[in-house]
Each structure stands twice: as structure tokens, then as C-alpha cells.
């Protein structure tokens, strides 16, 4: 979580469960399938409206699929990652995206395939120089 805090980012999780279910899960030890000690808020979309608004409500089952939205400081969506139910997420990829969008916001550069913090991004005005140096 500190990795997100260092990047001025909050994290919140949403499901269509009730807040009471969330509380029970938060109070269940990890070894029993719980998430005791989890530091970020769990939101209860009990009416399923927010899941529907974000386009992640699976109508056949009534639950939300694993959708992740990266939202910038102005409330604009910068990235969307959606997995079907069986597959979990990759925190490192979310941090990489945050780094890339923040690099772009701060310096106006664009981040090519595989970019990660510490690698050289592309200044659009001098893209030719970047390709000269990095293209194989």
C-alpha cells in the first residue's frame, strides 16, 4: 500500500456484497480465506448500480467481473484492465501504469512498450532521436 501512497494514489475495492459481508471478510484471518489487516476501503455496491455504470456487471451472475480503473487527479479514466472471473491481477502492472501516466503528466513524454520507471521515455518533439538510440 505504501507503494501507492508514495505515488499519491488511493486504492479502493468494490463488490456487490453488503458492508456487513465486507466487515466479516475483513475480520477473517488470511489463513482462513479472509483479508484481516487489509488497509484500503471496501465499498459495498449492494444495488449493483456502480458496477453497471462502469460496465463490469455480469448480468447472468449479478456479480462484478475483475475490472480495474486508473483514475487521474481530475477524475478522468486513464486506464482500464478487465479480467474475467477466474484470473487475478498484477499489482506491478498497476504501479507501472501509474508511473507511466505520472511521467507523462509531469514531463509531457510518452512511454513506449515495456516502459518502466528508470527507462528513457520518448519526447514527442524528438522522437527520431529516441528511435536512433533505442531501436534494434
Amino acid at each position, binding site marked *: 500500500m505504501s507503494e501507492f501512497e508514495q505515488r499519491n494514489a488511493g486504492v479502493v475495492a468494490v463488490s456487490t456484497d453488503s458492508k456487513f459481508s465486507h466487515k466479516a471478510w475483513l475480520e477473517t484471518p488470511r489463513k482462513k480465506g479472509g483479508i484481516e489487516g487489509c488497509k484500503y476501503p471496501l465499498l459495498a455496491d449492494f444495488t449493483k448500480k*456502480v458496477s453497471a455504470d462502469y460496465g463490469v456487471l455480469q448480468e447472468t451472475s449479478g456479480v462484478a467481473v475483475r475490472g480495474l480503473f486508473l483514475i487521474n487527479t481530475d477524475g478522468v479514466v486513464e486506464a482500464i484492465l478487465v479480467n474475467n472471473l477466474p484470473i487475478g491481477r498484477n499489482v506491478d502492472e498497476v504501479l507501472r501504469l501509474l508511473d507511466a501516466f505520472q511521467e507523462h503528466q509531469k514531463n509531457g513524454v510518452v512511454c513506449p512498450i515495456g516502459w518502466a520507471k528508470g527507462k528513457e521515455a520518448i519526447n514527442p518533439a524528438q522522437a527520431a532521436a529516441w528511435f536512433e538510440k533505442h531501436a534494434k
Partner: protein
Amino acid sequence: MSVRVGEKAPEFTLDAVVKGDFKSVSLKDYRGKWLVLFFYPLDFTFV
């Protein structure tokens, strides 16, 4: 309705559990900060 990159994220205000307490959480609470908002199907599964 669905969400697209480059567009405003839909506003929401929901009941939540924050550090063990029941609270209300809104998208507006995060203006000026980045936000990772993620959905998962059910409590007592993985995320």
C-alpha cells in the same frame, strides 16, 4: 453505460468499511489524488 479512457469516471457514493468502521466513500473524496478503483466478484474469493 460503460466507461472509456479519456472520459470522466462515473461519480459514486457507497457504503464502505474503512479500517474496520462503516463509512461513506465517494469518488469526489479522491480529487487531487490518483485512484485505483477495482471491482471483484465476491467477498471470500481472491481479488
